């Protein structure tokens, strides 16, 4: 038996343990808590929660609605996103980066802001339509308060998501595959139908699954468009139940949120099954195909793409700005009526709005900061670690983000409804429960870019420090962190932008004093004060734009694909 060697693995163990604790707290705990509530409400195994949920007709109606808008929104997003991706990636269209930037922008805007912007564009009070005197008479129903309205906006919101994934797939398409088909006599359109799109099946499937999960879990759009028409989907049903019944109905909502989770997972599984049916693997790597020359069609196609941008980005934002300048509901905007009063009101006068700005800013900063700090060691273990179980950790970090936000919100409520054992600390009804949910939900947004950052770094850089005598923590601080910092920080900025106007989670977790921007915006809109809601939206959109510009400065140091809006 060889002598035991004194190994100095203390730091490694400490790091692994710390990471494990963070992941258990943020990912596994909420999921397990939720499952426990369903199968063993009150501590004993029973099917009561499931039975009650299944017996309620509201459940079935909302599930049906969820499926309708989920599938409809997904179809629209996949069709539009794939079409734009093909045109942008495979043709010789001009102004590509600008197009990509503008087309992807709606992804950076919170869904409820999108909803508000479109509502302001088409409603009877629309300052935009009033500019031409084309607004319907007051009292007319806004056409967007409908199933098709919700589907349209979900498609607009998540088309860019599909676009990004399909475009990434198209970029990896080796040109030989296209050229071989061209040489075989196929024209461009035939190549597209018979070669390109079939090979893109995995990308399109993955994009569809992601779009489906996002549509099904979306709260902002069905809340703004569906609630006024009494068209409830599962997330809005949960919201209404909780708003009306408080903690008493938590068990019931837990069932509903698991139902959303199951629907979302079914979408992901369906994608897995579809993608496995054939072999789509592309083995070679090579340059991408020569762009197809559109010839005389180019101006037409370019113009239609910019028209699309005008429709999905420029006009809604323009409508939003106009609304924010109007003094009150239904008043036409003229040089005389234009006012900044709405901004003054939400920024300085309205208490809840004030608090919301403060809360949202520091929640977003805290979530971003924490995520960057945690993503570096977690990414280290996942990307470079030797332990195989760490890869499972990766999955469990993905889960809270892959599942709809409502699921995590309900889980957080369940965990913190009662004071934390042994300490007596009460998070329920404070802003801290929102922070917890943000940390759990958004960690993966910083982790993904960090991991791709790690994959771009030569491991020898760390090994060189190791032979120089540096222990793990020293290496992490002096070598590893500086090298992955751009990617991690870019991830942090993405988190900040996402969390700033977040609504899904905070709508269920907020309490008086812990309002977020999204929550106050929502309550303004529900109370008919669209002008204030619009002013708040314009402010958050402006902050987001500025941050995107700042983040762009990091771009040269980032792995490609970290900043979605950069081509």
């Amino acid at each position, binding site marked *: 038996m060889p002598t035991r060697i004194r190994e100095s693995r203390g730091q490694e163990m400490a790091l692994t343990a710390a990471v494990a604790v963070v992941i258990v707290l943020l990912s596994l705990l909420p999921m397990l808590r939720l499952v426990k509530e369903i199968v063993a409400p009150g501590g004993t195994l029973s099917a009561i929660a499931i039975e009650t949920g299944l017996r309620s007709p509201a459940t079935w109606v909302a599930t049906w609605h969820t499926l309708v808008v989920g599938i409809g929104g997904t179809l629209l997003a996949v069709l539009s996103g794939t079409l734009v991706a093909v045109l942008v990636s495979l043709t010789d269209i001009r102004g590509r980066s600008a197009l990509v930037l503008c087309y992807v922008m709606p992804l950076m805007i919170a869904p409820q802001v999108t909803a508000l912007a479109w509502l302001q564009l088409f409603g009877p009070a629309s300052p935009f339509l009033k500019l031409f005197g084309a607004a319907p008479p007051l009292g007319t129903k806004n056409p967007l308060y409908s199933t098709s309205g919700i589907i349209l906006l979900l498609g607009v919101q998540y088309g860019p998501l599909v676009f990004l994934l399909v475009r990434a797939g198209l970029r990896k398409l080796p040109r030989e595959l296209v050229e071989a088909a061209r040489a075989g006599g196929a024209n461009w359109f035939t190549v597209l139908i018979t070669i390109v799109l079939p090979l893109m099946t995995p990308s399109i499937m993955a994009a569809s699954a992601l779009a489906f999960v996002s549509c099904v879990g979306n709260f902002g759009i069905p809340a703004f468009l569906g609630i006024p028409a009494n068209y409830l989907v599962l997330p809005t049903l949960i919201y209404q139940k909780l708003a009306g019944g408080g903690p008493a109905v938590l068990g019931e909502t837990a069932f509903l949120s698991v139902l959303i989770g199951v629907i979302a997972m079914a979408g992901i599984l369906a994608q897995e099954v579809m993608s496995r049916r054939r072999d789509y693997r592309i083995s070679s790597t090579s340059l991408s195909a020569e762009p197809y020359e559109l010839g005389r069609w180019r101006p037409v196609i370019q113009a239609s793409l910019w028209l699309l941008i005008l429709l999905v980005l420029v006009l809604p934002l323009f409508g939003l700005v106009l609304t924010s300048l109007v003094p009150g509901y239904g008043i036409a905007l003229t040089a005389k009526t234009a006012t900044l009063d709405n901004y003054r009101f939400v920024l300085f006068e309205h208490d809840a709005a004030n608090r919301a700005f403060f809360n949202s800013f520091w929640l977003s900063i805290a979530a971003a900061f924490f995520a960057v700090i945690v993503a570096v060691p977690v990414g280290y273990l996942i990307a470079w670690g030797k332990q195989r179980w760490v890869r499972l950790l990766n999955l469990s970090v993905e889960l809270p983000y892959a599942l709809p936000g409502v699921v995590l919100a309900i889980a957080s409520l369940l965990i913190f409804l009662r004071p934390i054992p042994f300490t007596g600390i009460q998070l329920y009804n404070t802003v801290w429960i929102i922070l917890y949910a943000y940390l759990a939900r958004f960690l993966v947004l910083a982790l993904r870019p960090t991991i791709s950052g790690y994959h771009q770094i030569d491991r020898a850089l760390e090994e060189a*420090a190791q032979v120089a005598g540096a222990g793990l923590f020293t290496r992490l601080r002096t070598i590893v962190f500086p090298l992955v910092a751009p990617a991690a920080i870019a991830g942090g900025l993405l988190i900040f932008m996402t969390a700033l106007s977040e609504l899904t989670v905070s709508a269920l977790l907020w309490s008086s004093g812990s309002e977020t921007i999204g929550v106050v915006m929502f309550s303004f809109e529900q109370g008919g004060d669209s002008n204030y809601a619009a002013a708040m939206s314009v402010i958050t959109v402006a902050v987001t734009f500025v941050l995107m510009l700042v983040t762009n400065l990091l771009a040269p140091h980032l792995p490609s694909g970290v900043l979605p809006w950069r081509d």
Partner: protein
Amino acid sequence: MARLTLDHVTKSFADFDAVKDVSIDVADGEFLAVLGPSGCGKTTLLRLVAGFEKVSAGEIRIGSDVVSNSGGSVAPEKRRVGIVFQNYALWPHMTVAENIGYSLKVAKLDKAVARRKVEDALALVNLQGLGDRRPANLSGGQRQRVALARCLVAAPSLVLFDEPLANLDVHLRASMEDEFAAFHKRSGTTIVYITHDQAEAMALADRIAVMDHGRLAQLATPRELYHEPANEMVASFISQGILLPADVLSAEEAGHCKVRVLETELVVRCRPGELPRAGAKICCRSADLEVSADSSGFDGLVKRVIYQGGAARIEFTPAAGPDLTLHFEQPDPVTLVSGAEARLRLKSGWLIPAAGPAS
């Protein structure tokens, strides 16, 4: 400075043995080259010594300390080895001086002392005054020198090189080779130098360990490897040795024995104690072959003549062994043409020892 001992070291990845039962003893101050075709486990061997990989079996000692065995593994940062990586692995976010001074900073050395040591190290590799540059602004050769200085500054007991010249152009290689040799002479450090380039290994090393599929094929001086390869792999790998089937006719006498090869009789060098046997192999060098001037030797066909300036490389198939290809050089005037019959003569050769433990 320290001696390095690998004692029956094996490293398996899943069910694949990347390093199999390798035993090497590197003396204090020795320059050992590890040579072998790509994928034979050289890098893995080096990473075992550095401590980045754990041994599956066997033991590694540096000086008198056991650093790896199946009971555990001393962390790389505690081993006091220096590595020059193939791609240099300079930290892009630090200046040249910060790169070099890193290990001193980690060891919390006094700042002034550290600065002086960094200056010394820079001077040692002829990079005075470049301390404030970023690695990105250096040429390939300069980066290589920074990497060398960085590993030297900590005065490691053992320096490991992993194909340090593979990324440099031919011109720079020669000058860096000289520099490594000079550095070894000056510092007297124990060096393990990995390469797949025989010329480099021969030029630099005191001894060469030839590896083949994870095993140590032979550990010997460059001269011995060339003249007395221990097995067929080494014989054919080093300088494209020619292997010929032979029968040993007489027992060894004064380091020689008589063999029958290509239906002719020949006296070749051999190990002490060789006895007559059939199915042996001899190793010849192209210099051992010449065009026969008289009736001695064996007939065959000239397959190809490749003129290389001043001489031609001739590929020849003997009539007695149609599957064999012999190659040798004929200096100008080149008289052989492809397709012609010719008669060649073997001057000497080396009897490859019967398969058994490598020396």
